[in-house]
């Protein structure tokens, strides 16, 4: 039972959002950034690597799907796979260089890669459209043998597709994190020297974590491009990397479902506040400071401690 609690929670989020939300796009965004945050969490919470370069993989995913869907006649699922592969490839390159360093040096390297990617995307106008980005990305239906199986035209139809992809990815990531490989990553996070001394190949483990993270983030970027119909330069910006990281930390590191909470919190409050006050980022900044000072386990940690306190109170009442 306990093994499936988190998956059931994720399923509940997926099923409840259509009941409570008006906008299918907003609901899709929650799941899409949930994917990106889970990718980030695999590095931060499970491997102890803080990556500021997640925007690179997100951007790669959105550019790849934009190019394949507008220029080459590939079926959509294949294009999506290609975007995942590009995210993984980008992560392999960034990871290969960045994991030579540890701690803060590592963080700065990932940030520098994010900047480098941004300027490459900005300069290579022939491929990325530069400042304008890539426009008019179609959202083709899923067609099998000439039969339209699943149209993705309306926001809620697309949400259904995103939800299916999200749940599959969640299940897969959960499996990965509970496998021997995932446990070994935890060992690297908790005590790198000891894990190395036991004989684990630290660089290989970190690189593998990077590749998986890049694949998931690339998928998120591709879905985001399909949702909005554009692959803008801003998807490759510092801001995107920062946003993904912020969602992960607000949700709570080391727990996949917490990333979904973080994404939901960020996307929904951003949507709500930005319509009220254009300077809402000020409040976000204050939230980040508060989280670092008093709520280091994130929303998940907060919920967890409230739950524990309630339970012990209930138990006392029974006695």
């Amino acid at each position, binding site marked *: 039972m306990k093994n499936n609690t988190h998956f059931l929670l994720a399923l509940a989020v997926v099923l409840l959002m259509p009941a409570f939300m008006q906008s299918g796009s907003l609901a899709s965004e929650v799941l899409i950034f949930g994917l990106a945050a889970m990718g980030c969490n695999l590095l*931060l919470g499970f491997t102890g690597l*803080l990556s500021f370069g997640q925007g690179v993989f997100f951007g790669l995913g959105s550019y790849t799907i934009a190019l394949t869907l507008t220029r080459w006649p590939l079926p959509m699922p294949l294009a999506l796979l290609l975007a995942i592969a590009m995210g993984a490839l980008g992560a392999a390159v960034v990871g290969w*260089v960045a994991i*030579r*360093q*540890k*701690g*803060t*040096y590592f*963080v*700065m*390297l990932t*940030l*520098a*890669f994010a*900047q*480098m990617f941004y*300027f*490459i995307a*900005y*300069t290579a106008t022939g491929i990325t459209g530069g400042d304008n980005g890539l426009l008019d990305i179609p959202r083709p239906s899923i067609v099998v043998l000439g039969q339209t199986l699943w149209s993705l035209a309306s926001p809620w139809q697309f949400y259904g597709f995103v939800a299916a992809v999200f749940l599959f990815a969640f299940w897969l990531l959960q499996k990965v994190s509970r496998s021997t490989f995932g446990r070994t990553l935890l060992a690297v996070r908790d005590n790198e020297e000891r894990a190395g001394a036991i004989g684990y190949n630290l660089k290989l483990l970190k690189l593998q974590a990077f590749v998986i993270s890049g694949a998931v983030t690339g998928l998120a970027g591709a879905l985001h491009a399909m949702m909005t119909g554009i692959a803008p330069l801003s998807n490759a910006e*510092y801001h995107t990397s*920062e946003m993904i*990281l*912020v969602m992960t*930390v607000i949700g709570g*590191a080391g727990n996949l479902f917490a990333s979904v909470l973080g994404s939901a919190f960020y996307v929904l409050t951003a949507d709500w506040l930005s319509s009220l006050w254009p*300077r809402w*980022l*000020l409040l*976000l*900044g*204050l*939230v*980040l*400071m508060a*989280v*670092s*000072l008093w709520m*280091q386990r994130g929303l998940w940690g907060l919920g967890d401690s409230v739950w524990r306190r309630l339970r012990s109170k209930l138990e006392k009442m029974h006695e």
Partner: protein
Amino acid sequence: MNIYLLQVVNGVGIGMLYFLLAVGLSIVFGLLRFVNFAHGAFYLLGAYFCYQMMEWGSNFWLTLVLVPLAVGAIGWLTEKLMLRHVYDTAHEFHIVITVGLALVVQELVILQWGPLGTNVAVPDVLQGVVMWGSFIYPKYRLFVIGFTAVLAVLLWWVLEGTRLGSAVRAGSESTEMVSLLGINVFRIFSLVFALGAATAALAGVLAAPIRGAEPFMGIEALGVAFVVVVVGGMGSFGGALLGGLLIGVVQSVMSTLWPEGARLMIYIAMAAVLLLRPNGLLGRKE
């Protein structure tokens, strides 16, 4: 040929500003093992405070002194009231708290001065150009080079020749040891953090007449400062100087050869340095 010489001199000017921007980040990291993602915010404040004081009719020299002092005081307070409480936590919280601080500063700047950039006039004395034969160069940029060079020497003396400096350098090796010797390390932390904020603000003041002030210059500066520190070697004064000059010259020369790619080149230069010397040009092995 002349144009390249001009670009190299330009690059030295930019590089000295980059040095000033990065040196505080580097020293704070060396001593506190703390990456300050709000470092660009102090630079941003420097530029806007400069703009505001000039609007009030202050002269540039007074601005050059008062703004770093004011921002240094802000840095000192930030360290004392906030950052001190996260030193013991995992380094992601160092980053998250300063990212939050940078956002708050940036949004406050937009609230106060609006989202569009403003220009700051070059002071009267430094307007115009200097001519040596066929070599023509703007006075203000020449002043920036000279002034930052003097500052660099001064900073070097503070770090190498004073008691504070030796405490800082010893603290970079082992904070506990310095603390055991009866030195109040927390006071040193605050002072060094304030010094870092003040130097970043000074870079902002000096840059304002060249590139104006706009709300997103802080993030841009942060990226550059990281590159400089990574290229030069974290925690190294000489590294910040060398890295700053190198990056400044690369960017400046590339802007004649390949204008669109000039910014890209500095990141490529960084990647190249890191592949050859993973700890930066003058960095120690951790």
